[in-house]
Every structure is written in structure tokens, then in C-alpha cells.
């Protein structure tokens, strides 16, 4: 585990991989976790060690999350892309990488594929939220509801006196990001990502969604918008697909990343959308 500083913000970074003398079977893979209650551990304990048997892997805590710094500003999507690019530069990963994003991490991965395509060989999105019209308002509303819940009857007393350390830490993170930082305003100020622009993403993309996910419609929308996409729908899973079925997700993502056709853009594969 190492710290990487980008524009004065310290990021918690973990790099895994085969022993130094073993040839790498493809480009590095970078994992991008989800929002607020998430951090790099959700990949560190699931896909990352499996992928790291073949290629170099980098996991990092997003700005404001996990063990990275929690500054009060810098939460637009373009800031997240700049953070990721800065971390790649600082760790010497200057060639195209495969990006894997979960939920809000998928939003960042899509933004990177769109706005910094030279960085990206392929993208695998797990329950990704594309930042289409209305994305920011919907996210901010959900986050504000979450934080308002901490003001429920007796909650403040419980948090102050009895709540386990882990819960207090999670609540602190939520309140810092939602109520104190510019994150809600920055989401609304983020550069728009119209579906039509996604036709310019030329790298291969894998889209995984649970069949019971509340954002399954985004999977179909992305499959329509991304020219080189392959949508796979996992049975009996919700938006928490990665946590509910890590082995199933690995069975889809790991061989897909290892396929040489998915390691160098642009692709010429057709779209695969379930009927």
C-alpha cells in the first residue's frame, strides 16, 4: 500500500501483480470503486487478486473515500478523471489500461473512456451509472436522503454514545462528503455525458447488470449507446451485484479482460445485446 499525491491530494493506492520475472499477459487493470460507503476493499477482496495472477493491478481509494484525503472540493467527474490520470502518471502506467468500475466507479470509467481515450484499452462496467441527463440530481437526492436519516429519532444520541466505531466512521464520511464538501454541487457542475457522445467511445466495453437491479435500464441504454459493447445480465442479483455474486462477476470479467481482442482499442467487434 502506498500513497500517491496528485495536485496536493493524497491517494491511497494498492498495486498487485505477478512476480517481477513473470511476463504480463496483457495491459494493467485499474479498479475504480463506488460512492460514499465504498472503497478499494470491494475489489481488493474480489476481482483484483484473481486478475493480478496474470497482469499488473492497481486499486485506489477515490478522493474523499477510504484512506485517501477528504478535501472539501474537487468532486466533478472531470476532477475524478484528472485524479485517475494523475495516479496513472505517478505510478508509471502511461500506456492504455483496462478499467473496471463498480456503480459510481463505472461513471468515472465511462468519463475516462470519453474524455481521456488515450488512457483506455477497454472498460468493464459493473452496475454503472452513466451520467446522462438527471444523473446528478438523482444521485444528490439519494445522498441527501441518506444523511437526513442520521437525524432520525434518537439517532444522534445513538451515534454519539453507542454506535460501533465502524458505523461512526461511515457516518462521518457521508456527512463530510454530502453536507460539508462541494460534492453535491460538483456533481451538478460536472460536464454532461449525453448518450450520443458515447458513440465516440471506441474501446471494447463489457456491461454487467443484475436482473433485479433498479438501474437495469441504464445497462440497455449503454448497450445502445456504446458501439463496442457487450451486455450481460446476471440472474437474481440487484445493484449490489459485486457483493452479492463476486464469483459470478469474476467468471464474466476475468476471461473478458484476458481476451486479446479486448486489450487493444479500437475494436471492430459487434454489439451483443440480449433479445
Amino acid at each position, binding site marked *: *500500500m502506498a500513497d500517491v499525491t496528485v495536485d496536493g491530494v493524497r491517494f*491511497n493506492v*494498492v498495486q*498487485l501483480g505477478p*512476480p517481477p520475472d513473470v511476463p504480463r499477459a496483457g495491459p494493467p487493470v485499474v479498479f475504480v470503486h463506488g460512492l460514499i460507503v465504498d*472503497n*478499494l*476493499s*470491494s475489489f*481488493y*477482496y*474480489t476481482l*483484483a*487478486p*484473481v486478475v*493480478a495472477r496474470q497482469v499488473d493491478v492497481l486499486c485506489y*481509494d477515490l478522493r474523499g473515500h*477510504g*484512506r485517501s484525503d477528504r478535501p472539501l472540493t474537487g468532486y466533478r467527474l472531470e476532477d475524478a478523471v484528472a485524479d485517475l490520470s494523475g495516479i496513472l502518471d505517478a505510478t508509471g502506467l502511461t500506456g492504455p489500461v483496462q478499467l473496471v468500475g463498480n456503480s459510481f466507479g463505472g461513471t468515472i470509467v465511462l468519463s475516462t473512456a470519453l474524455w481521456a481515450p488515450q488512457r483506455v484499452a477497454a472498460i468493464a462496467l459493473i452496475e454503472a451509472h452513466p451520467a446522462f441527463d438527471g444523473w446528478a440530481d438523482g444521485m444528490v437526492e439519494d445522498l441527501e436522503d441518506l444523511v437526513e436519516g442520521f437525524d432520525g429519532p434518537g439517532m444522534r444520541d445513538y451515534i454519539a454514545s453507542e454506535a*460501533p*466505531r*465502524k458505523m461512526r*466512521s461511515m457516518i462521518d464520511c457521508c456527512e463530510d462528503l454530502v453536507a460539508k464538501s462541494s460534492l453535491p454541487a460538483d456533481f451538478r457542475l460536472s460536464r454532461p455525458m449525453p448518450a450520443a457522445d458515447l458513440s465516440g467511445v471506441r474501446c471494447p466495453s463489457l456491461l454487467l447488470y443484475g436482473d433485479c437491479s433498479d438501474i437495469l435500464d441504464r445497462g440497455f441504454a449503454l448497450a445502445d449507446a456504446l458501439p463496442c459493447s457487450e451486455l450481460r445480465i446476471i440472474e437474481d442479483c440487484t445493484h449490489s451485484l459485486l457483493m452479492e455474486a463476486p464469483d459470478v462477476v469474476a467468471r464474466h470479467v476475468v476471461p473478458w479482460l484476458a481476451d486479446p481482442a479486448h486489450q487493444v482499442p479500437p475494436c471492430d467487434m459487434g454489439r451483443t445485446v440480449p433479445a
Partner: protein
Amino acid sequence: MPEGVDVLDARTQEVLDAVRTIIANVIGEDYVQELEIDMDTSFHEDLDIESIEFVALGEALGERYGERVDLAGWIASMDVDDIIDMKVGRLVEHIVSCDG
């Protein structure tokens, strides 16, 4: 020696001491000072450790004992219940077993 207390061999005791120190560094001396960490201490029930802290613990152990400890790979091979129920002793025994 109180009845029922197992005597640890020197290597296990040494690893337990190192794990204790790293836990204190990761989750904070103040919190750990209130707790007696032994082989039977549960990461979840007793230490209330956060998943990201467990990553930091694993990375620190990797730096100390080398990549053969491979906590990420070891954890990835477990099911969720095993991880939730994990005790300090199981981690210590894993590290000792990697000595070979």
C-alpha cells in the same frame, strides 16, 4: 500459567506481537489500548475493523513478511462467513504457515 491458556510457541508469539503492533498502527493506538488482543480476538466482533483497514493490515504484513503471505489471495479464497468470523489467531497461523 492460568488454566485453559495455551502456551504459544516462540514463532507464533513473535508473529502475534507483530500483528498486534500493526493493528494498533492501522486502527489507532487509543482504540486498541482499551482492548486485549490475543489469538481469540475477533476482527469483526471485538475490533470492529473496517474492510479498508483490513486491506492496510494485509499490505503492512506483506511488507514485513514478504509477498508469500498474500493476504488478498488468501482472503479471496474464503467465503464471506469465514471472513466475518476471522480471529487474530487464524491470521497469525496463516502467516506462520507461510514460513516454509
